[in-house]
């Protein structure tokens, strides 16, 4: 509650929250404002924005409504962002918590695996995963989650390393508590704030990763994602730049909003700033 109060006191966090609510609003109203399939042909291709009242953001190279695609794309981007982030955080927290709590060989083993993932450029790994396991939206989301967890694991591990030697953890052990309960019910709530903050970074990156895949025509072509729209506009980039620029702006604002909220969360949850 206290943290929430501090969060709304920061102007940057407020701006982020407003932007994010706007994007969420777009996602929620998409089926009402644009009930037709956004990928269906709607009119003459390559109409500039604000020239036709029916397509106020214009149409793309195949004559699809850009506004409809942007609104529906918000659903896809947010969905991919949230699901991939949850997946990455879950994997990262479990691996980091176990490694940090037990230390020794367990830690060494798990951290070498983490490093193996970290040293591979995650976009390349993502390309390989998508190439091998087809590129429908489910696979893409899972693949993004799978390449994004190492940093979360390292963060959780660092928190656990400092928390596990605290006396309250020793007290739990002397009470006869089982390790799993100590890790997940006693230590984890104390280790979570920085991980929650980092989740916003993962979410922003997940949205970007999906767009990058789509730009390379490797994402699911049957969904109206912002990346797909940018990919479509690539061939007319020099003449009809708005096709790529409009969804690009949407991505920019969404990622910005997520990271502003994340920054605000960081300030709100960081105990060192509490006294200010």
């Amino acid at each position: 509650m206290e943290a929430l109060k501090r969060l709304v006191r920061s102007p940057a966090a407020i701006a982020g929250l407003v932007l994010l609510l706007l994007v969420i609003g777009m996602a929620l109203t998409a089926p009402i404002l644009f009930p037709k399939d956004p990928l269906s042909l709607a009119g003459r291709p390559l109409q500039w924005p604000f020239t036709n009242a029916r397509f106020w953001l214009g149409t793309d190279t195949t004559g699809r409504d850009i506004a409809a695609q942007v609104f529906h794309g918000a659903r896809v981007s947010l969905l991919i962002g949230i699901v991939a982030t949850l997946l990455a955080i879950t994997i990262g927290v479990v691996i980091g918590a176990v490694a940090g709590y037990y230390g020794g060989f367990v830690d060494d083993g798990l951290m070498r695996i983490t490093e193996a993932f970290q040293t591979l450029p995650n976009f390349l790994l993502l390309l390989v995963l998508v190439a091998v396991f087809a590129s429908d939206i489910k696979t893409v989301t899972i693949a993004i989650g799978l390449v994004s967890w190492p940093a979360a694991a390292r963060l959780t591990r660092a928190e656990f390393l400092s928390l596990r030697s605290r006396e309250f953890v020793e007290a739990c052990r002397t009470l006869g508590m089982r390790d799993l309960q100590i890790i997940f019910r006693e230590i984890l709530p104390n280790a979570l704030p920085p991980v929650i903050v980092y989740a916003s970074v993962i979410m922003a990156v997940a949205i970007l990763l999906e767009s990058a895949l789509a730009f390379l025509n490797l994402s699911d072509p049957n969904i109206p994602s912002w990346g797909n729209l940018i990919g479509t506009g690539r061939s007319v980039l020099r003449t009809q730049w708005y096709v790529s620029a409009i969804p690009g702006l949407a991505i920019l604002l969404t990622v910005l909003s997520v990271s502003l909220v994340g920054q605000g969360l960081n300030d709100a949850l960081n105990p060192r700033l509490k006294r200010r």
Partner: protein
Amino acid sequence: MKTVLSIEGLTVALPPGADRPHALEDVSLALSANEILCVVGESGSGKSMMTGALLGLLPEGVRATAGKILFDGEDLLTLGDAALRKIRGARIGMVFQEPMTALNPLRTIGDQIAEMFRTHTDLVSAEITQRVIDLLRDVHIPHPEEARRAYPHELSGGQRQRAMIAMALALEPRVLIADEPTTALDVTTQAQILKLIRELQQRKGTAVLFITHDFGVVAEIADRVAVMQRGRLVEAGRAEDILKRPQHLYTKALIAAVPPLVPPPPKAVTAEPILRIEHVSKTYRKGGLWSRHRRVTHAVQDANLVLPRGGTLGIVGESGSGKSTLARCIVRLLDPDSGSIHLGGTDLARLSRSAMREQTRRIQMVFQDPFASLNPRRRAGELVAQGPIIHGETPAKALAKAKDMFALVGLDPDATERYPHEFSGGQRQRIGLARALALEPEVLVADEPVSALDVSVQAQVLRLLADLRSRLGLSVVFITHDLRVAAQICDRIAVMKSGVVVEEGRTAEVFGAPRHSYTRALLASVPGRGWTPPERSDVLLAAP
């Protein structure tokens, strides 16, 4: 005597929202040349704020609103930063509590002392080097030439504090402010540092303002004493007057809370042992496969101890003596390398992890740090109820039991809904005690349970512990570095040094006729050992 520094009607305001409006209220003090003035107080008494005000180093949002601090005819409160910088270090020296954090770890000791000269004088570097070596010799650091080139981590805590003192005295300031300079040190080191401060002060005629919470230290070093309580100066006077005949109720309470070094008459203890520690050893190994990097620390070596049923066994020793390691071996937070720990008929050292979990209801532990030992995200009641729940009690019954436990340790049973940060240090330690006792253990292992507490709170918790011990028939292993506390609460005492139990016996015997030279050294180092607090008659303890 000539007054060097005088504080007149100093009032320091705290920012709005603090627990009280003023950190200091109308404090007047005079420090004369060639004397040691001890400012005594518990945490929150404002004694550290006073040094902050003196040096213009108050925390953000805190400022002096009234009064004067006169030093050499100038009011320090009116001086700007540049003028204050000329005074700090050169004319008012400062020694802090923790020498490790007060020194820069990346620069050598000699370099840091030399900086004093480089900042405040025009000496050339050869002269500075010679001065530094002289200073290090003055503070009795062995091999001053080599110590000059050493980094802070290469010196022991006592040597680091000596280096800090050398630095503070480098420019022969007329005033030295020492803020709890021996609190972080072991008792034998503390005795040496106190002697050093006294010696240098007399040789150079420095006026020393010595901040401390420990009346033993006061008895050891003070010429005059000022007692602070919640930002007010409640009593000031000559050391022997205050120590022997305190006038103010708070001073009386503080002095009464200092445990006397003389053990009370022994009580009858059965010979029947409840806990037998036999040949327990624990070794830490560090480093890789190559012997050059390998470090072996024998934390506990072949410890043999017996805890009689219903008795209290004190384990005393300095930091690094292995007393905490031994305590953690007993409750199996650490696995001993060898030896056996018999609790009744069970050898705890040989139990598997899951079998040990079963046995935890018979042996429980109380921890040192009242802030770190309670999970900040759980309610106090939950923390106490956890143990019974783990051992098969229903949550409803366990919570009811937690309320009983709260009443038992002198806390309000309705406070179970609150979070740990809403309690004071002493209250948290009571929660820790309640948590341990909720399992109705036969043996309680207490690892420095009162050393993080203020002296008046410490006395309350010790009294509670003694009371519970007799009411519940507890047997207690009591780890402490404080011989005064050990004298009061323990039936038997074991003295540990570098992992070895060097002496063990009845408390009265260990204190009255110590056999081992180290025990004698420890006893001789207890600050204020020559001072017997006045009869603790009708003195009531001040409310925390």
